């Protein structure tokens, strides 16, 4: 019997529709299965409840609930979750705070397709 390759569920959180679609279309990691996107922290938490994603890309400045708080809540609910913060590098302190609350890495906007895929691959590596 052949085991199907382990797929990880990807959720994209960004208040910009363009960025969401960009990430969804550009990511080419075989093991990632896009399951939905959210425009802010509140929507992200709702989507998390119904889809239980394993991997999240997270914007920082969003209405309703910002990325830092959303990271903290997601990690509290699912410690094994992997989060890549994707944001503009206007404020390093906020980005550092997001990592301190449990995000695993940071990718600076704007990014190329290659940078996105490299960052996701690094994010999925063990250890």
């Amino acid at each position, binding site marked *: 019997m052949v085991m199907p390759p382990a797929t990880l569920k990807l959720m994209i959180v960004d208040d910009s529709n363009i960025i969401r679609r960009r990430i969804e279309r550009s990511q080419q990691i075989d093991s990632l299965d896009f399951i939905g996107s959210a425009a802010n922290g509140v929507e992200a938490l709702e989507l998390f409840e119904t889809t239980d994603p394993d991997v999240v890309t997270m914007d920082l400045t969003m209405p309703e609930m910002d990325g830092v708080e959303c990271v903290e809540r997601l990690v509290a609910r699912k410690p094994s979750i992997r989060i*890549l913060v994707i944001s503009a*590098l206007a404020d*390093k*302190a906020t*980005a*550092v*705070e997001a*990592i*301190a609350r*449990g995000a*695993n*890495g*940071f*990718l*600076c906007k704007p990014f190329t397709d290659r940078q996105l895929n490299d*960052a996701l691959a*690094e*994010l999925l*590596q063990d*250890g």
Partner: protein
Amino acid sequence: MIASEWLYVMDDRNGNSNSGLHRVGQVPGAEISAMKKLLNRLLAFRGPMLIGIALTGFAFAVLLPGFQLAGRLDDTTAALRLVSEQRRQADVVAAALGALRDRLDSFGYVDEPLNEVRNSMAELDSLERTLNAATDLGGRFAVSASRPIRSSPELAADLVTFQATWQRLRLGLVPVVAFQGVPYADSEASGVQLNEGGRLLVQESRKAIVVARRDGAQMSAALGQIAAALEAQSTQLSAFLRLLMLVAFGGTLAVGASLTYYALARRRQALLLAEARLQTEGILQTVKEGLFLLDSKGHIGAAHSASMRRLFKRDPVAGLSLQELLAPIVPDRTLRTALRFVEILWSERTKENLVRSINPLQEVEVSFETGSGGQETRWLEFDFHRVRNDGKLSNLLVSVNDVTPRVRLGRELAELREKAQSQVDTLLGVLQVNPEQLRSFLADADTAMRMINAMLREPAKEEASLRGKLEAIFRQMHGIKGEASALGLTTVQSRAHEFEDALKALREQSSVSGGDFLTLAVRLDDLFSHLESLGDLVERFAQPVQAAAAPGDTGRGLFIVGAPRAVVDPGRAASGLIDTLDQLLQRVAGDRGKSARLVTNGLEVVPEPYRRAVKDIAVQAIRNSVVHGIEIPELRRIGGKAAAGTLTVQFCDEGAAGYRLIIEDDGAGLSLRRIREAAVERGILCAEDAARLDSKQLLPLLFRAGFSTHAVADEDAGRGVGMSLVAEIVKDLNGRLGISSGEGRYTRLSVVLPSLQRVQSVAVA
């Protein structure tokens, strides 16, 4: 992880946990390093243990049996000596019995041989007891002759034989030795004769001789056998002992060799470590980068590069926390973020490669206090790498570079780029300007700059004269700015504006000294050189084209430097002035979302001596009108006016009465309320006075230096200088100035300049 390829950290077993960097240099490969690690471990822990076990085993396997063997050999030797000594007792007994018989025959003295027999019997009894003794009286350390016999069945059998023969012999001897007294009787009659006892003794001794001959020989043989067996045993034991000694020798050699090897290996490792330390030290002493290790508590390790002291201007660095290192040189916010960043590097959740870009110390501006109380600013670049030991995060390797030259160069490049851009802007601005206007602007600006320069040089010590100077410079500069703005020369305009800012800052100081003007000189120089480069630019573009230009060509564009000023034809001058004013009007109106048109009348009759004054007055008045008077189109529509405001500039020659310049707009008019408020705000009037004064008394305030109803100054209004400049010009020309306004309808500025004939006559008089 870069660090692990060339630098790894070992535990320091001497307890100094901070002397982390032990080995710097190329480690040939992971395998060799793993093997070395294993060997190190073995030597460090198992070596001494193995040697201890070997020594104990050696003691048990060799020394203890040797000790036992020696004891047995001792016993055997004792038994052998005893048996060999007593073997001759059979012969002694036989000889004594023979002597006894002889003495009896010759009536000799018999006590001596009898005693010999008795002695021998005692010896043999003692021998029998000794060899037969069942217990070891002295314990294992005492010599026991019976032990070898008890332990050997063969010897035990020989002992039984000995005992049997001895008992038989003994039985034969007992009657002999039982004799006491003298065996002879001495009588006169028969002389010396054996008495009864004597005869019995003779009989017993004869029997005993027979017994001794038979049993004595057997007993000797038995003792001989025992002796031979003991000798064989002794030889065997000696051979064993020799073998054991040989083994012991071998063992000692082996233990000695391994001890030596161990010591050598330790020494070699110590040498390697010492060498590695030296190399590390060498690298750390010479490397230009700041290199140090942070432990999990955030402290800097003892092994750091020497340049750390230079980079951070402090000593010692080791043992400091990162916070202590950075707190004096970076702002609080940066420090907090940096410490938080280091924290996330210790978390295994964080992907090292995915957080490099948010390193807050990637290029950080640091400032050090210099000895003289000043501040020195530099830029440092920090890089963090995780160091793992056996897969566990043990330290952070931090490298620090002074990137000040790079940052400065980058900034200079940016400045150059900006300068180049501004030149392009200037050029583009120049290309749009009417050549007449530009030429006259440059000439006017040059004059104004020279005046400012002269004012700056003019000595003045008193506060009042310094302040007067400040005001005069301000007006000159404001004039330049106004004209530059009218021509759309933004690069000049912005520089003049900056200069005004500096002047304003001085004006607001509680006291002004001559030294304060020094900074102005520097800024003035900047503006000077800018105007000069503008002139150069104009020259360069004008020269080649000028030759080709048709005389009298009034078109806009590149044909700039034309006839000398004196022969400017009044018509052309007027059209230049009208263009200037119209451009200014359109630009200022455009900037403020307003719309206006210019109507002029009579400007061609402005006499040459008044041309500059008329232009300066009109420029300031138009700016004021657009900023304060003309409303935005929506408001105008609500007020039932045309969307575009109208600005009229009229000049007429009134003969002997002089000349009249009227500048009027159809805007909102002057608001007495705003003027009152501004006057109170600026401390010119108290609230009661302001409320009491009427329009005739209030309006002259508008011509006061520093008075403006605008709270914030921009390039077109707000400094309160424009109208005071107008007043100044009119005063200089001995003219008169009036202002009137209808709220919501118009504002009219009216200037009367004296007739030139009168001016000349006054001058002649």
